[in-house]
């Protein structure tokens, strides 16, 4: 349907797994900017767009999208290898909401017009998306959202406020959960709206976080006029679509990569601080190591399911809980052994690999975002263990 064809002409699905892995690895090593490996903070668009365009050019931006929508139609098993290699090399996460959220949303629920208009612009990097979900009084309780969209002729008039909107300052489009029926029950009456960030009435205000970084934003909507055709799917049925999209996030947040990265840095720090040989440190380190290895094993169980084309159940929340808390425990240990360096703002000795405070702070929100770990435990309790409300 769409006009950009993937550059990769050979059918990657036909390759042997290991050959494919090597193919991906070599290309990444040749093309990913070395100075951006394992960046300590989430990168802004101006920093990571060269890489985004490299991926786009190669046709590897959206490997999981079907070929008819401009993707590679990569089989799940191959997608996993692709992701493993991206993570192995420490490639920065791009402004990927268009790729992982909007694309699948439109492919599954969009009109042909929406697909034809939006998908190529994601593939080309023309549209960079942000996700308008949380609100000041609808965080963990997302369904309590109050940003409303009222139909006025062939436009919706949007009023309200979003918060924790990742990299909204870099985005030119936003996919927005809005309330379109105030009288319906909480989860009903919510719709999915695609909004051009250039529309008058939108104000983006960065939030400085504990990393002194502006990763998140508040986004204010003051009588913003959005064409009615930009509603995705059925009006008032946005909640189910939003929930379905979260499955990506849950496995992503459960990936061992952050813990594995921090663990490597723990060793470097321990060596630098002269405690590496300390038997008690070795015991702590060994415990963390086994936690990490078992996390990898458990992650493998879920990845195998994906590889077999199965849908993941609510039990994937186990990964998110364990991974994020392990990440925190590793960085807690860093602070304990860092001596007075535990108070420094910048990496030690200008060495980005010796950055205990940066990683410690970075690990804090991991248990909050993507559905706080309290929410994840509620989900496990109710949907996996069947404990009563």
């Amino acid at each position, binding site marked *: 349907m769409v006009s950009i064809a993937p550059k990769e002409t050979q059918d990657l699905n036909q390759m042997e797994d290991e050959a494919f892995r090597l193919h991906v690895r070599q290309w990444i090593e040749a093309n990913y900017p070395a100075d951006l490996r394992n960046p300590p903070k989430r990168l802004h668009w101006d920093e990571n767009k060269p890489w985004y365009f490299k991926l786009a050019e190669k046709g590897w931006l959206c490997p999981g999208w079907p070929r008819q929508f401009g993707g590679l139609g990569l089989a799940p098993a191959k997608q996993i290898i692709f992701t493993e290699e991206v993570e192995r090399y420490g490639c920065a996460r791009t402004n990927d909401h268009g790729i992982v959220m909007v694309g699948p949303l439109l492919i599954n629920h969009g009109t042909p017009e929406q697909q034809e208009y939006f998908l190529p612009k994601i593939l080309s990097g023309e549209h960079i998306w942000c996700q308008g979900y949380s609100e000041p009084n609808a965080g963990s309780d997302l369904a309590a959202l109050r940003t409303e969209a009222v139909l006025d002729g062939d436009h919706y008039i949007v009023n309200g406020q979003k918060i924790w909107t990742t990299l909204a300052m870099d985005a030119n489009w936003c996919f927005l959960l809005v309330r379109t029926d105030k009288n319906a029950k909480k989860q009903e009456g919510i719709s999915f709206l695609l909004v051009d960030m250039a529309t008058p009435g939108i104000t983006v205000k960065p939030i400085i976080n504990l990393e002194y970084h502006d990763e998140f934003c508040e986004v204010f909507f003051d009588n913003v006029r959005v064409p009615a055709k930009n509603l995705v799917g059925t009006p008032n049925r946005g909640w189910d679509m939003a929930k379905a999209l979260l499955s990506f996030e849950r496995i992503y947040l459960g990936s061992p990569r952050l813990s594995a990265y921090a663990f*490597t840095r723990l060793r470097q720090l321990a060596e630098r601080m002269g405690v590496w040989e300390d038997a008690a440190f070795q015991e702590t380190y060994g415990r963390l190591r086994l936690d990490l290895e078992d996390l990898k094993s458990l992650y493998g169980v879920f990845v195998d399911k994906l590889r077999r084309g199965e849908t993941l159940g609510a039990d994937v929340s186990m990964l998110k809980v364990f991974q994020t808390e392990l990440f925190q425990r590793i960085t807690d240990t860093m602070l304990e052994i860092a001596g007075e360096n535990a108070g420094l703002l910048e990496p030690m000795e200008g060495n980005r690999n010796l950055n205990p405070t940066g990683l410690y702070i970075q690990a804090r929100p991991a248990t909050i975002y993507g559905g706080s770990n309290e929410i994840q435990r509620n989900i496990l309790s109710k949907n996996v263990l069947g404990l009563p409300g």
Partner: protein
Amino acid sequence: MSQALDDRSESIRMIRDSAGAVAPRGGDTKRVRALRFTDPGFDKGVFAQMGELGWIGLAVAEDAGGAGLGMSEAVALTEEIGAGLAPEPLIPAMLSARLLAAVEDKALLAPLLEGGKVLLTAWQEKADTLAVHGTSDAPRVFIPMAAGADAFLLPVREGNRIALHALDAAGADVVLERTMDGGNVGTLRADLSRASRVADDVGAVLEQALDEAALATAGHMLGLMEKAFEMTLAYLKTRQQFGRIIGTFQSLQHRAADLKIHIALTRAAVESAAAVLDSGATGAVRQAAVSKAKARAAESGLLVLRQCIQLHGGIGYTDEYDVGMYLRRGMVIANQYGSATLHRRRFMALAPEDVE
């Protein structure tokens, strides 16, 4: 690895089904309770049944009279055994079978595989070790269910080799101690002049057999965890206090979620280790996989089991209620074939890190 698991899902399922005949998951604990604090502490008839079902020789090659299956099936089986609390010394018997099959001593192996004779390997000289010293005159300790042994297999060091002797249990100097679960362990002071020589060197196969026993024990622990947790969930869903089902209390819900995570980690560690062994891994790779699983099972196992008591409240502390039997069994097996600390350290010494 996972592909291998897929291919084997059928044999694993069959093993689990067959386990139901002996150690039914949903069954009562009458048989188990009746055997506690008796001698030998298990049912020789059931042991024989285990032999008939091919369990003792589960991982022994078919041409040696075994079932020719692997560790993936073995851990599924010991998991079921754990869930059903069967007291029969299956894992020690599997260990002995592995030795005898390797040295091709059919005269001893056949009655063991059939479950007609209980042969226990008396390899251990001190607590919390996997090392086989084979000191000829050292007492051999912590022999599980020694009260029921028909004979002991005795590794004895001769220079760089570990010879294997067999010793009839009748007339042997065995001191028994009761275990928390109503079973027993024995200390054997062997009189080698009464023993018969079986083989010249079992050093390598014994090392492997101990690894397999450690992993099978991790599977046993997984079964205890699963079943005790299942009972606990059922209790949380029915017990009322303060006019509410206690499973509605969020602090208990979140603790249950954490226990579920520990169980899932244990299962992932045990099953992936079994797949590593079934892929033919040897040496450090095998040992690292086993140690990763056993360390997890010992540590998460006791954690889950004691929390199951706590979540039951007072009733969990009574002998009458079954959940305590799972904790007691857990105490007995947690450190068998190596404690969490032993295995964690062995893992750290063996497993290379992916250092950039």
